[in-house]
């Protein structure tokens, strides 16, 4: 069970990291997308889920029972190779429905002061 105190807590990645052309190309190849000049619309999940996984595990959530319920992206500007990104993740809500715990995590990807992508992942922790 998730500690209710974590709702609203934001974890800001301590270090920025640089989006590589290789990571964009590999992702594009894996989904058959020929254009590798910008990241595909769902590329940022590879960054945000890693970040929120760490946050959720620290918060006491059993990752082995997690199923992805839904996903949303707002893209203000697509990622490109060379972007220096800081990801901050916030647990926006946690509730229990039919015995399953439902957690929504928001991840914001910034480059400097510019917000490039916000995404929301709803995770269902099976009872």
């Amino acid at each position, binding site marked *: 069970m998730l500690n209710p105190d974590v709702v609203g807590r934001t974890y800001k990645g301590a270090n920025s990291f640089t989006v590589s052309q290789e990571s964009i190309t590999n992702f594009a190849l894996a989904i058959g997308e020929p254009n590798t000049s*910008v990241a595909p619309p769902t590329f940022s999940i590879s960054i945000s889920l890693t970040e929120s996984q760490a946050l959720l595990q620290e918060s006491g959530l059993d990752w082995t029972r997690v199923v*992805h319920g839904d996903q949303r992206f707002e893209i203000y500007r697509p990622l490109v190779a060379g972007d220096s990104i800081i990801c901050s993740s916030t647990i926006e809500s946690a509730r229990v429905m039919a015995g399953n715990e439902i957690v929504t995590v928001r991840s914001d990807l910034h480059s400097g002061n510019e917000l490039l992508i916000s995404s929301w992942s709803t995770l269902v922790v099976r009872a």
Partner: protein
Amino acid sequence: MSFQVGDELAAKTFLINRAKLVAYANASGDQNPIHQDEDFAKSVGLENVIAHGMFTMALAGRYVSELAGGSEKVREFSARFTKPVVVPAGIDVELILSAKVSAVEGNQIKVDLIAICDEVKVLGMAKATFLA
């Protein structure tokens, strides 16, 4: 290309197989064995290996990018993972994507997406917004 509310956009079929799931796992970092290891998937009560929900969504994203005329034009994209895409060994599973224009607001085109696999909708409430 101009879009009008109610336009039904050309459907496209994508193929999903085990090799593609491995490539997606490596590219995305999601190495959950339910997407690669049949014995493991069955041990946790699944019928067989299932595709990452985010792989199905990524293919839908590729479809939206094609409709938009480029990934850089996609502004919003959301979906609910309603049914798993089961991927037996040695088989190409067909994922059929189609879209209908739900709104045109200035230079923003909103579409509702339908993703069908084995005659079942695998994404719910799937929507995207892209720039005309």
